[in-house]
């Protein structure tokens, strides 16, 4: 699945897609901005109301079109604006990860994490960490 000849890992800039829920993680991403915390420019955020909205299809489609890594960011357990949407996401992603591993897709390419509206710094460090991990893995090739 990896094309190691085309791009040298060192010069590779991964494209990462992040799904953020409106109430916690998207607000946390905004706070990173208002706090001017600098992080890797590799992520593109799609806002949804709740991480519970994220259909596995979206993630699979992202890999299909050549996104190198997908991040799902929700509210911390117990903090969900919609009572318990994030628990449902957790279960769903857990299942999806098992399936992806069957396909030989590296575990690091899909990550589920929690960011609160007060955690601008955490948001930034997750993005940086994800970017580095994907950079190390190299591009995901269609």
């Amino acid at each position, binding site marked *: 699945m990896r094309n190691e000849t085309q791009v040298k890992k060192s010069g590779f800039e991964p494209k990462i897609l992040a799904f953020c829920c409106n109430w916690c993680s998207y607000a946390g991403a905004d706070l990173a*901005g208002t706090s001017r915390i600098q992080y890797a420019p590799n992520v*593109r955020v799609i806002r949804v*109301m709740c991480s519970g*909205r994220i*259909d596995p299809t*979206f993630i699979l*489609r992202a890999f299909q*079109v050549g*996104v190198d890594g997908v991040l799902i960011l929700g509210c911390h357990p117990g903090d969900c604006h919609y009572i318990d949407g994030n628990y*449902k996401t957790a279960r769903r992603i857990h299942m999806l990860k098992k399936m992806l591993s069957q396909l030989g897709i590296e575990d690091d390419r899909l990550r589920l994490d929690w960011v609160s509206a007060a955690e601008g710094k955490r948001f930034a460090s997750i993005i940086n960490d994800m970017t580095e991990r994907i950079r190390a893995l190299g591009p995901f090739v269609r």
Partner: protein
Amino acid sequence: MSDVRIGIFVCHCGKNIGGVINVPEVTEYAKTLPDVVYAEHNLYTCSAEGISSIRQKISEHKLNRVVVASCTPRTHETLFRNACEAAGLNKYLFEFVNIRDQCSWVHMQEPEKATEKARDLIRMGVAKARLLEPLEEVEIRVTPSCLVIGGGVAGMSAALNLANQGFEVYLVERDKELGGLLLNLNRLFTINGKAEEVIIPLIERVKNHQKIKVHTSTEVKGVAGFIGNFDVTLDQKGEERKIKVGTIIVATGAEVLKPVGQYGYGDKSNILTQLELEERLNKGMGDEQNIVMINCVGARIPERPYCGRICCMVAIKNAVLIKENDPRAKVWVLHRDLMTYGTEFEKYYQKAMEKGIRFIRYSLDKPPEIVGNNKVKAVKVYHQLMGKEMVLPCDMLVLTTPLIPHEDNQDISRMLRVSLSEHGFFLEAHLKLQPVEFATDGIYICGCARWPTDVPEAISQACAASAKAVIPMRRGYVRPEAITASVNEDKCSGCGTCVLLCPYNAIELQSKDGKKLAHITTAQCKGCGTCGAACPSGAISMNHFRDEEILAQVEALVI
């Protein structure tokens, strides 16, 4: 040819965006995107000039989708949506692209990469905007009346508040009389006034209020419908009656635990609960000289971990009354923590100490033991803070027990489709910020049915529940979230996955043409989209975040 006409407005936000991102270049790029017919950049799109430009360009270029690339939807979406609406465009045809908080501000040292990211984000925004659909905010009429279940101090207070605001109230009480738990109390802390002096006038006011219809000896037998339109069946001793209400307040209270089998309660004649002591105090005490009270009987134990919240004050109140009645009497209160929280209760505790009531701390590891056969003669207690066993002579043992939920809370919760917490009390929508609301719109909760409360707290909660109930009734309609889920009945298999997942009980399976199909009560849907993500048949569509829209965004990420 597509008839989609998109207009894009890119904001410099002074230097905030423009200082990092090449805004003119991005604007030019935006013009090349499919269906984009117009693009401009503004120093501040949110300024008066920016807003009027949006309105002007909508009509000038017959725009039917608008994209603003600027700060964050969390603070500015409403503003831009309103600008669209003012120009006659459905506000859901607006899409926000965040190029400041999540782009220029966080990549200040990398202007080129930030510009590239802005291009990507705008492309993704346009991809979604092309597919946006207008949404109608439907209005649901709200019947301006409320059903209050429970005629105790909470229920009556809620009813009065609603009725005084001019709304019709059906107050349903299962007992013969209004009044609830307070009917059995002697005096009320911390004022130590007679309970009847509070409850009787309240009952009179409720009974005499022309807006309140009191139904005693009546139970709620069935509830159907949703906010604004509940169909309620009342059952008065077998006689059924149907009413229609817009809102429902649950104020069914709680009951005092009877500690059967504990410390010899039930076997020995001189053991009472605090509630039974109230009656004795009301009628007149005997000549008991040594009174021992044990707190936390049946509370803060593994089987019932919660604290009864008000029991300490009940014990203090009755201890003081005994002492005032006969200053020679000795009163011991055995406790595990005195929960006299706040200003008034702590003072109440101090007053009791002044009066000579003595408090002894015991631990759950070494609970008090009683001495005596047919009657309690003494109580043995290990004084935890002296490390010493004491034997207290005892003419009367009083057990302080917590309020516990009614057993039939279960039935009410099923009927109303609201939840109970693990303790058996009703579960609010959010413990901190929505303490008197249920997750289901239009149904509210107050008083001891939610959690043990004293009288002022019950009244506060009753008024709070009334405040929530009155909002839709005053308005006369509810406009539920337009961003909701909807079911494509042709695709629905009736599997019920969504029904189980919905945190708001907004989905149920309904029979239609011989098939079981998911039906979403739009008025109850909050738009989280969990159902849509899980629907195996792809039958549920989440408005404004439809699969097509999100997939288009995903696909646009990579050119």
